[in-house]
């Protein structure tokens, strides 16, 4: 319905208003469907309790609980001093002596230990407050970032490095190729383009045996590109991203009128000059978008990375998160949720801020070929 016809009729019939109400209702339901998992995972990330079953949409307010003694005794040792982050509710806090026997007092919930009321050697009575345990919205994030067994920040760093280096190389190399396919006319050009397209649809997931063995061999002579290295993975990503990006970029180069470079050629410019001085500045915004998109694509990839990276310290973020998933969910749900939220942020920000360009690129790249 065009704007004009809308403006002509200022008064809507009741049926139309009902229709509008139904439409808005459907959209609201759709937004709930779309956002519920996201709200749910954010709420889980903020929920101080790790448990999946007790989760609520709005996480409970952080609270400080005072832990009291259940019997008179004497404090022998402080195992977790004030400030310690308690990840599991079974963690030991204090070693005490009750009725002549040593006993370990464990935390009833997770949080931060605070305010231990007694010094070592002092006695306490039944019902005396021993220490406080304070929960926090950010305890899952704290656990995520500060667990040595799961070096989340290291994984994120690996992901960012691998994705940025790969996408920069991809854009540089494919832009050259796309320029050639767009501007030169040479024998076999069409066949080469179709061949690139066909070769690209081969599921590279399954040529992994060959890729795995190849990296293994290469790594024996050039360790930088071997298995378990960022260099090797970058090599594989770059090689695999050639075809689709050549096609995508050729479409963009084709949209730059050829009159521009032809007139420059007549003035004595060579192809190198035309490329750098004329065409490149014109397509640069598009190249940036393509680069950012391949960044996100590589950042999100996990299958190749999982097979080619064996060492925990060389993992990418997605491989690391996959470990959370395959592990038991019930225990690590809150920490996984925190990782999921932080891990999804780069992709989310990039996609939402570039939505129009992406749609343009998607339709142009595929429809125009």
């Amino acid at each position: 319905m065009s704007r004009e016809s809308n403006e002509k009729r200022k008064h809507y019939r009741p049926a139309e208003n009902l229709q509008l109400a139904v439409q808005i209702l459907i959209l609201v339901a759709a937004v709930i469907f779309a956002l519920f998992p996201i709200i749910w995972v954010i709420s889980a990330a903020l929920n101080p309790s790790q448990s999946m079953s007790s989760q609520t949409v709005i996480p409970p307010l952080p609270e400080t609980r005072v832990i009291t003694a259940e019997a008179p005794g004497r404090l022998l040792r402080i195992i977790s001093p004030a400030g310690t982050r308690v990840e599991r509710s079974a963690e030991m806090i204090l070693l005490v002596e009750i009725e002549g026997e040593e006993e370990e007092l464990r935390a009833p919930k997770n949080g931060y230990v605070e305010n231990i009321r007694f010094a070592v050697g002092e006695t306490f009575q039944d019902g005396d407050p021993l220490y406080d345990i304070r929960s926090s919205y950010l305890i899952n994030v704290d656990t995520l970032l500060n667990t040595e067994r799961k070096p989340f920040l290291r994984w994120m760093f690996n992901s960012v490095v691998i994705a940025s280096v790969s996408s920069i190389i991809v854009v540089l190399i494919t832009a050259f190729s796309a320029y050639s396919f767009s501007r030169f006319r040479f024998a076999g050009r069409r066949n080469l383009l179709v061949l690139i397209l066909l070769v690209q649809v081969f599921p590279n997931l399954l040529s992994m045996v060959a890729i795995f063995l190849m990296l293994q061999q290469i790594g024996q002579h050039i360790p930088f590109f071997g298995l378990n290295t960022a260099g090797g993975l970058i090599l594989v990503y770059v090689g695999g991203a050639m075809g689709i990006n050549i096609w995508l970029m050729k479409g963009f180069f084709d949209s730059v009128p050829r009159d521009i470079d032809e007139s420059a050629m007549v003035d004595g410019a060579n192809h190198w000059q035309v490329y750098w001085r004329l065409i490149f500045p014109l397509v640069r915004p598009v190249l940036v978008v393509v680069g950012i998109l391949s960044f996100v694509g590589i950042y999100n990839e996990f299958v190749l990375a999982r097979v080619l990276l064996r060492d925990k310290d060389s993992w990418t973020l997605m491989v690391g998160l996959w470990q959370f998933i395959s592990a038991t969910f019930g225990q690590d749900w809150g920490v996984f949720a925190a990782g999921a939220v932080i891990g999804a942020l780069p992709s989310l920000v990039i996609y939402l801020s570039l939505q129009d360009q992406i749609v343009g690129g998607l339709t142009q790249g595929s429809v125009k070929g």
Partner: protein
Amino acid sequence: MAEISYEQKRKRSSFGPATIIRLGAVYLGLMIVDAFALFLVYAFATDGVWELAITIGLITIMVNIINLRRDLYALRWIAPALALMCLLVVYPIAYTVYVSFTNYGDGNLLTKSQVIKLLERETYLPEGGKVYAWDLYQNPDGQFALWLTDENDGDKYYFATMTDFSPVESLAAGAEKPEDYQGYRKLSRAESLRASGQAQDLTFGTEAAPIGIAGRRDAGEFAQRYVYQTEQDVMLDRATGSMFYPVYETGRDENDQVYRTGQFENEAGDTLRTGFIANIGLKNYRSFLERDDIRIPLTRIFLWTIGFSFISVLSTFTVGLLFALLLQNRRIPYRRAFRTLLIVPWAIPGLISVAVWKGMLNPNLGVVSNMLRAIGLEPPPFFIDPGWAKAGILLVNLWLGYPYFMLVCSGALAAIPSDMYEAAEVDGAGWWNKFRDLTLPMLLVAVGPLLIASFTYNFNNFVIIEAYNEGGPPMVESGTLPAGHTDILISYAFRLAFGGGRGADFGLASAITIIIFLMVAGVTLLQYRLTKGWEETSENV
């Protein structure tokens, strides 16, 4: 006129200093690339990895030709991309095609010559050969020696260095072993354990009667067990005198459906432990039809792959189109905000989304199950029951996929000229008629190719299958081979190659990969024709 001056300028410019620098840079670059490639070719050839050596050699030759021949100037721009694609896409494809005709997999991981080398290292104790218990000694130069105890002869002692073997005369049988003997020091238990791997590869004593270590306790006059005779292509077992012939392709074992291929086998039908990679022709492809534990899962997985892709495309397109149509209505407040919120699922990494859904659908703890229980329904077994698992995957994929079509349809709808609607309204068409006769046909022209692209994408949508349930629940009919009810072709092939209980079967996985490739390539070509890509590219040639 313009033609001439253009040519003249070209000529003039090709002799300028800039050109010389450029040419110099090309040659220098080429030399560096060539030196690097030569090093790799040499290294791989020495390793015996001929397929890689040849591939890298060919790519290097191609890059050189492209850069040295003037008439291939256009290809110079493409050369880096071509080289990378050849090495990392084309070579792996060729390798996969080759593997699909072999028995490559667990039990057959090495080439025949590697297996022969491995078998020739095996030793045996010939009849009458003596066995000793051993202790390891080492001199300051790092050379090892063995203190040997003949336990069958009242613990009589012998001492064997790398070149010599002699009975120990100075000590009585059974006496305490000395800490130092002839300049050799006795290694402690821990040292000996650490060095035993190294010492196991050595032979001690004289050449006439070599003594080797054959276990944690035993050393003795062991001899090479298997000898390969090149002319006859046969492996002789010196322990039994039996001849083992290489068998490349044995028939089907009716009872337990084992395909014995790539083994050394003697007349009695015994095989040697290690198999080798053998060309088995079309056997992998034939097994799609011939082996029940492949045919039944493969048929089901194939149908589910088609069904999954088709339903996914249909559902995401329908829902996406519905939302796009609703957002067309200018009377809806906050349209832009609605649109942004609705595309959020698309902006989340797929792996994370699937994992979150997996948590939400968890039958015991998940929020969906809890909500169903709250309204009195029993939560369905989303991961154990094949039907519910498939339903869960389709639901998750709908959530993941509809924003793409919503965006694409929004763009396409906006491109339909509004006067066409006005004309239709004048003709008295209702909304349904307008949609069916005007919107949908116009939309499908623009979105049609993307529907096909989405189909091929889902056809190989490994991530959702793997992250949701790793293909499970398992399919009983596939026997010992790994296959699940929600597996699609690509995840089935992946499981055959990399996962599963019985070990890897790269040959079979590669054969399935080739089938997937042929189907997807066919659909891609079809899509290419539909988008009139053929005409467009040919126009430009």
